[in-house]
């Protein structure tokens, strides 16, 4: 009882397996906006072409009772097969992809390249006045990388949302 009435806000990473049918994403987004829940990040892609299913990963936040509500509301949508709370079910991986453009020259450009190397990002585009770096990592590492580039000619950022999965043998 105490757990459910706890008022602290926590972040939750939820993955759900859904029918890959027209309107299913609109349905999920409508659920969140209609009930005033947060969407910090959302990704969706087909995972099972043969059986026509997609996986939606959502990072949200709220009290324990709100997170339980979100899961229950998702689960009762007709096209939803299964809902998994990755934050609650133990160790999990959460990864984002970021493409980051730096426009600079001279020493600043060299420093940007060194910063990329330091964070494990790779160069996917290079000119004499710019780089595009690609980094696939956790949100925190990407945030740190972008932060480091702010004074080194950061020009454009394009990020996907979080794709997440439980470690080990469990599946949602």
């Amino acid at each position: 009882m105490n757990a459910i009435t706890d008022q602290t806000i926590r972040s939750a990473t939820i993955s759900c397996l859904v029918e890959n049918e027209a309107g299913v994403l609109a349905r999920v987004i409508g659920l969140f906006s209609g009930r005033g829940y947060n969407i910090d990040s959302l990704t969706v892609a087909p995972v099972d072409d043969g059986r026509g299913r997609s996986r939606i990963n959502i990072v949200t936040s709220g009290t324990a009772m709100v997170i339980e509500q979100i899961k229950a509301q998702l689960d009762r949508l007709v096209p939803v097969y299964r809902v998994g709370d990755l934050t609650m079910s133990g160790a999990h991986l959460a990864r984002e992809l970021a493409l980051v453009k730096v426009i600079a020259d001279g020493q600043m450009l060299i420093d940007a390249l060194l910063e990329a190397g330091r964070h494990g990002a790779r160069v996917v585009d290079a000119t004499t006045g710019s780089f595009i770096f690609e980094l696939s990592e956790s949100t925190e590492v990407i945030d740190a990388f972008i932060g480091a580039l702010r004074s080194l000619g950061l020009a454009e950022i394009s990020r996907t949302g979080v794709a997440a999965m439980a470690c080990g043998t469990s599946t949602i």
Partner: protein
Amino acid sequence: MTQTIQTAPALPDAASAETAPGAEILLRALKDQGVEVIFGYPGGAVLPIYDAIFQQNAIRHILVRHEQAAVHAAEGYARSTGRVGVVLVTSGPGATNAVTGLVDALMDSIPIVCLTGQVPTHLIGNDAFQEADTTGITRPATKHNYLVKKPGDLARVVHEAFYVARSGRPGPVVIDLPKDILIGPAPYAEKPEQPHRSYRPATSPQPEQIARAIALLKTAKRPMIYIGGGVINSGDRASEALIRFVRKTGFPCTSTLMGLGAYPSSDKQFLGMLGMHGTYEANLAMHGCDVMLNVGARFDDRVTGRLNAFSPDSRKIHIDIDPSSINKNVAVEVPVIGDAGLALEALLEAWDANPAAAPDVSTWWAQIAQWQAIDCLKFRQTREKGGIIKPQHALQRLQDITRELGRETYISTEVGQHQMWAAQYLRFEKPNRWLTSGGLGTMGYGLPAAMGAQIAHPDALCIDVAGEASILMNIQEMATLAQYRLPVKVFILNNQYMGMVRQWQELLHGSRYSESYSEALPDFVKLADSFHAVGMRATCIDELDDVIRAMIAEPRAVIADICVDQKENCFPMIPSGAAHNDMILGPEHGTALADGRAAGLTDEGLVLV
């Protein structure tokens, strides 16, 4: 001379690859789902369906006069029979007119399948004539919706829609049908063995949870059973199991607005409805109980009042088929996910199996009897000749006379004070006899809902208890009553105001009656006449009984205009933002309101509806 009889072309059987026009396949799928009645209104996009309806007899079509009324009529049909209500409307404005009814069905968990026409597939998204993004608009208004884009999907989608509408927590489903799909050829598909790939709601309660619930109930000293609409949705068996369980335990019970009739109202273990306008004893018992068993209710804000003061010392068990309703507003100790009927039957067995003795609740009943002695619903009706009729008295007499005549009776209401008085003063002994808009509170619900019930029960007495403001919202349905000779009785409690709005304006806004006076009312007797019905009026207490008897005896539809006291307020009342034990009682109880501001009302409460 031999006569050549034209027969309709035989439909292909499921095994063959033959096809028939989509509209015929649609009707066949409906027929296979057991549909007998469709409530609808034609239009360009659905002409193929209307053509197919014209050429068959299996399904009856009831022509309403506004698409909103089609959905409310289907709701009345569904609630009074337990079956799925079916609606047929055209594209564009037909579909958008239906939205209010769909949201109403969603809030009250009524199974509806609504077929909407749509422009041909190649014109979708082109701003065509009478085009609307029906699937986009109805997505948050329905349990689920479909747009049929391929003829091969048509029959399958219909079967799926019925399954979704009636399974788990029932609700409305929309099927958007582009015109080319209805005209072009389509194959038939039988009802599938496996009803759905992803949607399979759990209905059987877990035995461990049932055992925990019983163990908790047996420790109770002040138990309370809180009944909701879920028992009605579950069916007659759930109501029967509920009655046996309440009688076996000897516990007191109360019901929400939507649950009335699941347990017989006249029974001594029933404390009346609870909530904002519930009885004194029901609210205080909920407030003071130590173990609460919620069967099929959702802890709605009309029931709980201020949440942090709701039943503060009780341990709660919540039986609900919808897991998202559990721990939504109120944290409970023992959640039981499952169908109400199955859960109640499991509780009965577990009660007998658990060795602990049944708790002695006689002290609790003695306390409840003290609260009942307050007689919170009492009112004073003058008997003087020419005296004004109190609305509560009008309903009391309606109750007494209908009971005396012993006919199977269905009551629907509109929304407002009359609705609350109907819930307080009319007695419901059986489920599916009470049709009201609880969750959405839609004015204009009652007349079409009574119409739907009358279609389902042609020999029953169907009465719409209405206010004079509400009844105007779907008054055009009087024409439907005339066309199908439906003897619905419209019982108007005419107080010349939107009563509930006026009451709140009196209590919270210094009696500034802004836009709540029913200006320029029609003469309801003449109105009835113009719609080929019978109009009656009672202006004073001497006329009331005769009008009620004449109304019931009349074989045609009736509008009875009952002129009642304009200043009556609906009590008891828990003002918004107050707790269950902060009830205001009526003037008969000496707690008159001072300064137009209700006791216990907070600024927080003011912003609540």
